[in-house]
């Protein structure tokens, strides 16, 4: 390997690592707040990228039907619950959020020339379609069993993952897609070139991480999420509802996932099921952070990115094997150094 190839691989590793880091942060967040190991995190990556591709092809993204269906289901369940509690004053809000908002989105999407929109508008619309899936999935799949064991929640995660993959095939077909780069061209650095899209990915990831940091450190809602992760009972006694915290963390996870997909779809072809492997690599990073530490998880994810990129040079057939084998020494190290605490709370 000469210097130039090393640089190229390093650039690859950094780019992928940045995306894995974002996903690792989302996984740690979701686990800390809800104890859910969020296997379907990667599906949001694929859904984000493929929804954007459909928009750019001028088609109404099929993901919209899922939002409408889940929104209707959530509206029925929430309304029934509100009526049982004699709290009919909550109905307008329930119907507005779960039914009216998706319908408005549909109206908006149907009335504009999707393919002709500027990229930024297309991205915003994509996020508006995909991100609501996060809280809706939490509402329908996890909220009813929020107090269940970690294992039970994990099994539900696997089920949600399988369903989303199946729906992905139905929505987007088996063909892979790529979207055009945010900015075409590359930066000439003498010994190597740097694609502008790579810069977009690195800058956006860094910005998103800083924004998350500010959200958790400075805003009362971010602090409320941390409080729920630290002490669920204490948080409930402050009026921080576990449901609200769960929905908020799933919203952030969906946003991070979908945005990651939008970022990488210009540099890699994504299929309906590509998200799973990407999500799992983020998961390896999250495991390095013990599903608890944000900085260690992000660093671990970067390590995964580099390991993947350099092993694809030395032993490309074993690339995935090497990355996922990393989990064994990590788990050994963690079980030897950390005091084992029984699951839950």
């Amino acid at each position, binding site marked *: 390997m000469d210097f130039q190839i090393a640089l190229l691989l390093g650039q690859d590793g950094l780019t992928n690592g940045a995306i894995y880091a974002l996903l690792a942060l989302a996984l740690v967040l979701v686990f800390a707040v809800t104890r859910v190991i969020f296997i379907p995190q990667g599906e949001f990556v694929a859904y984000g990228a493929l929804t954007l591709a459909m928009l750019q092809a001028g088609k109404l993204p099929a993901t919209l039907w899922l939002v409408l269906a889940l929104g209707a289901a959530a509206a029925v369940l929430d309304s029934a619950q509100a009526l049982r509690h004699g709290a009919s004053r909550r109905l307008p809000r329930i119907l507005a959020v779960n039914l009216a908002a998706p319908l408005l989105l549909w109206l908006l999407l149907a009335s504009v020339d999707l393919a002709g929109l500027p990229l930024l508008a297309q991205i915003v619309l994509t996020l508006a379609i995909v991100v609501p899936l996060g809280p809706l999935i939490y509402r329908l799949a996890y909220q009813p069993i929020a107090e269940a064991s970690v294992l039970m929640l994990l099994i539900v995660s696997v089920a949600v993952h399988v369903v989303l993959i199946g729906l992905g095939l139905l929505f987007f077909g088996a063909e892979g897609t790529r979207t055009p780069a945010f900015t075409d061209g590359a930066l000439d650095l003498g010994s190597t070139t740097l694609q502008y899209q790579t810069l977009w990915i690195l800058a956006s990831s860094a910005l998103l991480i800083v924004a998350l940091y500010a959200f958790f450190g400075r805003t009362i809602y971010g602090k409320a999420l941390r409080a729920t992760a630290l002490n669920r009972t204490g948080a409930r006694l402050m009026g921080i509802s576990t449901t*609200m915290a769960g929905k908020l963390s799933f919203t952030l996870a969906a946003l991070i996932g979908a945005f990651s997909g939008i970022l990488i779809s210009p540099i890699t072809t994504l299929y309906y099921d590509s998200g799973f492997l990407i999500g799992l690599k983020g998961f390896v990073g999250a495991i390095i952070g013990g599903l608890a530490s944000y900085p260690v998880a992000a660093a671990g994810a970067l390590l995964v990115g580099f390991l993947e990129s350099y092993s694809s040079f030395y032993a490309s057939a074993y690339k995935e094997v090497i990355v996922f084998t990393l989990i064994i020494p990590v788990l050994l190290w963690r079980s030897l150094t950390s005091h084992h605490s029984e699951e839950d709370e």
Partner: protein
Amino acid sequence: MNSKPILLEARDLSVSYGKVEALHKVSLRIREGEIVTVIGPNGAGKTTLLSCLMGLLPGRGEVSYVGRPLGNDFEVEERVGLGLTLVPEKRELFADMSVEDNLLLGAFDRYRRGQRDYGETMQEVYGIFPRLKERAGQMAGTLSGGERQMLAMGRALMAKPRLLMLDEPSLGLAPLIIREIFRTVSRLREMGVSVLLVEQNARAALQVADFGYVLETGEVSLEGPSAELASDPRVIEAYLGLGGKH
């Protein structure tokens, strides 16, 4: 004899853990601006009572708050919104967050409903517990036992409750600190906060309270104005006498 409006009333409240009944047909009432104490030995069901009133545990029987029935489907979070706050025995602080952030989150429910005056409330809490102000930037987990209790109470006050429920605020604290905590409790009445105080330290509790209940093996065995209870021979023998537990 007492015409102040009733804030919280429980009638024939029973709570069971599986087949074991921890609370049997307990009735009590707290009037606006009163300090009411529930004393009794360990395991009498005092914590169970508070948990049920706060909505952490389901119960049978009736609970009403300002005349409005509070069924089991009233979640903890909704009760906080109605002005009920519980300082649990375990304090349940956010150990890895600063004292100031703990206090701030006490005002979360009010913030969510659009009341953004938490800065003023925090100054009031710092006025009551100057020690918390000195510790503002410190992690809650590094505080001493007394400071933790102050933080737990301060955090609860950030919600501007109408009824503050305190579960064993003196537990595990040094006598000097206990005195300070109880002095604060009687100051709360002047601020218009009603208090339901659950205590094993019967002597101190009866001193600050207006009215008291004795809870034994899940049932109310005695009730009356604090002064009467404090001079009742049964209470003296079991809870206040030299041979008693405290």
